[in-house]
């Protein structure tokens, strides 16, 4: 992305900044335990929990920073934080 004078830009350019790269631990669903309560989607500070058509959710790893709030709050312990290995 080219920069502009004074950094003025079109709205939405934060999408190009893929903050998923900051992650140390990544959240992984255990769909056998998930009860589709949506708490993870509600509490995610980065809108990185995306709804699926079947009512379950999936993570948007481009923007998930691995903060672990979802795993901490999940009432069924259906989210595991796994060490990111690249």
């Amino acid at each position, binding site marked *: 992305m080219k*920069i502009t*004078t*004074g*950094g*003025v*830009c*079109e709205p939405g350019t*934060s999408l190009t*900044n893929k903050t998923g790269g900051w992650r140390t631990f990544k959240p992984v669903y255990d769909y056998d335990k998930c009860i589709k309560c949506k708490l993870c989607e509600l509490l995610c500070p980065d809108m990185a929990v995306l709804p699926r058509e079947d009512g379950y959710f999936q993570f948007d790893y481009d923007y998930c920073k691995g903060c672990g709030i979802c795993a901490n709050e999940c009432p069924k312990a259906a989210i595991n934080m796994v060490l990111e290995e690249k």
Partner: protein
Amino acid sequence: MVTKGKLEMEKMVVVEGSYAVAHAVKVCRPNVISAYPITPQTHIVEGLSQFIADGEIQNCEYINVESEFSALSALVGSSAVGARCYSATTSQGLELMHEVLFNVSGMRMPIVMTVVNRAVSAPINIWNDHQDAISQRDTGWIQLYAEDLQEAADMTAQAFKIAEDEEVLMPVMVCMDGFILSHVYEPVVLLEQELTDEYLPTYKPLNILDPKKPMSFGTLADPNYYTEFRYLQQKAMENALKKIEDAANEFYDMFGRYYGGLTDKYQTGDADIILVAMGSIVGTIKDTIDKLRQKGVKVGLLKVRSFRPFPAEAIKEAIKDAKVVAVLDKNISLGLNEGALFTEIKSCLYNTENRVPVVGYMIGHGGRDIRMSTIENIISEAQEVMESGIRKESQFTDVREEIL
């Protein structure tokens, strides 16, 4: 000051320096003014609010605020919507703006602000020196220093022209000495509205904050981008070097008055000793030079109008034949024992062939009177440096040892 033809005496009126500046701001047709009163700046904003109350500035909003921090912050928003913005402050007020100064420059907003130079607390002191503005050296504002009332007024129009140039787009501080210029009455030519309109076209912002076409201002730049923003600010400063000269030349063509571009020279042609200074002290130095020239002392003056961008090339050229250079600073970098202008002039010579001795004098702190006798002493010490080398590189001037 150089004038084209004769000074237009019939156009001159005796006004206070603050009025001359307020009037200059008025004819520049600002859209938003926001300022907080502080001595010795108050008369400027008082004058402007009076103009607005009297309906003399059309299409202009005066925003009352509770602090200098808010004054400049209000202008950040105003500049973003495309307004021509003005403020004025001094001393503690300027220091309170410190954080916002960086934002204005980083967001490339061509705001013009008069800094009526005053000492900083503690101890409390309302009189003139340059510590306030010099302490904001690295905030990315262009800093111009005026010698007299006429220059302070004329420089205001030049400042808008420089700031709003699309190759610059940087904010400008017009620095004028507190009381010595702000509160003195002197004959000046007030800027003519028609000429100023011709000199200063309507501001055309690159981008404006508009709900119909949303844009993000003041965005984040991560480590992959931040360096390039700093680089572009530096480039804009370099572009300003030429634009400051252009603005002064164009002003001369149109209004017939000229005070130098980045710098101005007085009797430097054959001078062995060259003094370097900024602001109103320049007048006292010129008088002293006139006196000593009659006695055959080859002394001249280099007046620095632009402290930022720093005109290194112009300075090197001006002092290339001098045998000694004495720099007078109304500020000090505590712990270095040097004034800023002295440090920077020394530094710009280091990688050159010119080994001229440079000595520094810190002078006039907190409004201490600078007399011709003090300047004469400095010149006679400079003569000693010329004959026998530097004994003291940088020193305080007129310290009252008896009260220590």
